[in-house]
Every structure is written in C-alpha cells, then in structure tokens.
C-alpha cells in the first residue's frame, strides 16, 4: 500500500511546468490582467489600513499615536483662552468629560463654580496679554458672565427645593472664589504695570521704541481696570446673595428652633401622661425634663404654672424604672 503512495509521490516530485510553459501561462495571465484591470486601483496597502484586521501592528500604532495625540492636545488645550485653536477642545471635550463625573446637584454646583473660575482665569489672562483684540476680550467676559449666571441658577434651584444649606454653601463658594481671584488679579496686574512702566522708562532713552510701547500700556491698563471692575461687580453680587441667603435661612432656623421648643413642651406634657402609666424610660424623661427647664427659664413665669405638677411626677417614673 505504502509502495503505491511512494510511487505517486515520487512521480509528483518530477511533475511540474517547464520554464517555457510557466512563462507562457504567465504572459497569458498578464494579458488577461491588463484587459481586466482591478476596479479597486489600489496603491501599496497602507500599514494603517483599518479594513485589514490582520494588520494588528498598524492598528496598534494608530491607537497609540491617537491616544498620545489626544492626550497631549487635551493637555495643551487646558491652558488656552478664547481665540486659540484648541480652545473648543477645552470647552467641549475636557470640561464636558469632567462635568460627567459630577452627578449630584451639589457636585454640579461645585463644578459650575470651578468653571466660572476657569472663565475668569481666561479673562484675566487676556487682560494681561498685549495685542489681544477687543472682540476676544468681550467674548471671554461674556463667557465669564454666563458661567456666574449658571451658578446663580443653581443657587436659585437649591432655594426652590428648600435646600438652604447647599444654596448658602454654593453662594459662599462663589463669593470666596471671586474674592481670592480679585486679590490675586490685583497683585498680578500691579506687577505687570510696574514691569511695563520700567520697560517704558528704559525705552525712553531710545526714542524710536517709545511710540510703539505707549499704546500697549494704555490698552493694558484700560482692560485691567475693566476686568477688575467686572470681578468686583460679580464679587459684590455674590456676597450680597450670600448675605441674603444667610439672613433668610438664619431666620428660618430660628423660627424652626422656636417651634421645636414649643413641640418639646407639648411632648413633655404628653410624655408625663405616658410615664404615669409606666411606658417611658428614665433617660428620655430626664432629657425632656432638662429641656423643659431650659425653656422655662426663658419663658414667662405665668406660663410655667400649669406645668408645675410635673416635678411631682418625675420620681414616679424613676420608681417605675
């Protein structure tokens, strides 16, 4: 059996096309290829061809480059201001992604405060940079105003939902942030002014440069004053809001406290009745008695008289326990 197979295999070894035959077939095939060209006139396959899933190396290189590029663009975009090429990346990608993390209304409000701070940083940066067009500065200021308005909206929402604590906290955060930025901006702008005036003094010796510097100084000081005023206005508004909320919620809490005290008095009366039937424990009774005494100190003596028999009942509760 093996012998026959061996014979066949040996025969197969010597069976092949002669060179002439091979060339003849090849010529015929090339003629066919020329007359029927590929409808996909491809050039050399790209090492990054995504269609070719076997090309794992190319795809992985592409992914790595994409990640590196995306990461560096995103990082570079963080320092941009309106008018920069990557500014939309900062607004529409970086901030959107970070905003997704903020889920609760509280976290969202915090993120809005942070965004307002970022917009303010941009305004400050533009004010301290020479040769920035007025349009860009206005756009940045509008962005800042819009972001503070957003924070105010958040505060209003908290108020609507009777969440005084968060409303107050957000208003405080905004006011704090604006206060800090105002101080920092004052420092920065004064330094800048000194350096610019120093430069102008030095340049006074060379008359040719003098003319080119003086308009910049004017533009800078005007925009710096403008920004300072803007921050001050926003800060004043935020502080005002904070104060309003504080007063409002303080009054509310006092009112609540009073009503609570009254509740305790009523509770005491009812608890006295209950303890007489032996249902209350000693600690609760003690606590209520202490609170009651406190209230009695503040209340009018005439109001106390109907509750006076309580003291006689207390030992009864002790006996029960």
């Amino acid at each position, binding site marked *: 059996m093996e012998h026959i197979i061996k014979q*066949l295999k040996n025969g197969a070894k010597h*069976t092949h096309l002669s060179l002439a035959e091979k060339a003849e077939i090849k010529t015929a095939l090339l003629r066919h290829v020329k007359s029927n060209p590929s409808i996909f006139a491809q050039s050399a396959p790209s090492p990054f061809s995504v269609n070719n899933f076997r090309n794992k190396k190319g795809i992985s290189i592409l992914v790595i480059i994409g990640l590196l590029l995306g990461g560096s663009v995103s990082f570079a975009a963080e320092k941009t201001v309106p008018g920069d090429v990557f500014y939309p990346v900062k607004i529409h990608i970086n901030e959107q992604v970070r905003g997704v993390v903020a889920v609760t209304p509280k976290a969202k409000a915090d993120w809005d405060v942070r965004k307002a701070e970022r917009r303010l940083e941009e305004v400050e940066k533009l004010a301290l940079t020479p040769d920035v067009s007025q349009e860009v500065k206005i756009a940045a200021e509008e962005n800042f105003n819009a972001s503070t308005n957003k924070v105010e909206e958040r505060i209003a929402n908290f108020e609507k939902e009777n969440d005084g604590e968060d409303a107050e906290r957000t208003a405080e955060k905004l006011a704090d942030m604006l206060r800090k930025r105002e101080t920092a901006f004052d420092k920065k702008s004064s330094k800048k002014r000194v350096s610019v005036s120093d430069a102008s003094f030095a340049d006074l010796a060379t008359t040719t440069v003098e003319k080119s510097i003086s308009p910049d100084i004017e533009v800078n000081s005007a925009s710096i004053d403008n920004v300072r005023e803007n921050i001050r206005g926003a800060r004043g508004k935020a502080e005002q809001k904070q104060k309003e909320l504080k007063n409002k919620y303080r009054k509310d809490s006092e009112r609540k406290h009073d009503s609570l005290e009254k509740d305790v008095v009523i509770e005491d009366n009812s608890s006295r009745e209950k303890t007489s039937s032996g249902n209350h424990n000693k600690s609760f009774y003690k606590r209520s008695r202490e609170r009651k005494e406190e209230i009695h100190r503040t209340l009018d003596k005439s109001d106390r008289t109907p509750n006076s028999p309580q003291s006689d009942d207390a030992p009864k509760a002790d006996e029960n326990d």
Partner: protein
Amino acid sequence: MKPNATEQEFIKAYDQFADAIFRHCVFRVSDREKAKDIAQGTFVRVWDYMSQGKEIDNMRAFLYRIANNLVIDEYRKKKDDSLDRMRDEEGFDIGFEPRHDIENKDEYARAQSLLECLPDKYREALVMRHIDGLSVKDIARLTHESENVISVRIHRAIERMQILSKNHGTHH
C-alpha cells in the same frame, strides 16, 4: 505602468502555486495539456475574483478549490462523452482492466494508470492528501464533506489501487 498591489499579489501567488496547481490537475485529469489549461483557468478566475476588490484569506486553499471545481467540470464534460467514465462514477468493477498497456509502463506511469481507474471522488481525496499534501481537515473544507468521509475515501482509494495492482501483478 507599474503593477498595483493587487497585481503584485496575484503574480506572487502564480509564481508560488503554479506548479502545485498544475501537478494537482495532471494527477486529476491525466492529461498534461488539459492540466495546463485548467491551471491557467484557475488563475484567471482568481484574478477575476481579486480584481473585484474581494479579499482572499487563504490563497492556497482558494486555488485548490477553484482548480477542483474546474476539474469536476472537466469530468462532467468527459462523462457526457464516455460511458466508461460513467461506470467508474457509479461503482468500480475490480475485475475491470483499466489500461491494456499497464505492464509496459514504468512504476510511476503504472501508479498513474491505477489512479485513473479510481472513481473521481476517491481520486480527488487521494491526490489532495498524498500529492498536494493537504490535511484531511483542509480537504474536508475544500470539498464540503466531513473529515470522516474524506478519511474513508482515502482509505478506500488506496485499497482499490492495491487490489488493482495485485490483479495486474504490479504490486511488489
């Protein structure tokens, strides 16, 4: 004109597999000229497929599949012409003498002659396994049969060749 990537791939496939495909065809049809035609036709079909922008995952398997289909077409043509071939297809008669001049041929030619006596399906399996060196799994995939069927065909093909060889005193 510089050949594009598809052309280059096609030419490379021709240079690499032309002899193997031709050999397969020779052992299937036992006619050198016909085998040449079938081999050429195989590559023409491959180009027609590639030129449409379709991708070929396994060029070798693809070539054997096309060649096999063309050989089957050739058998059909023959079948129409020959009643003898028809009898081979339906069932091989052991007592049948395939070639009158079988003793006069050398060993290889005798083996070839014995191969010619096999029904096409047995011949197909045997050539693919022992001439082309394809695995049973690959053959099963190419012929759309189960691996078990292919193994049985190969075994029976060898068995029949042995009997034929004994009958004509060619077995050593």
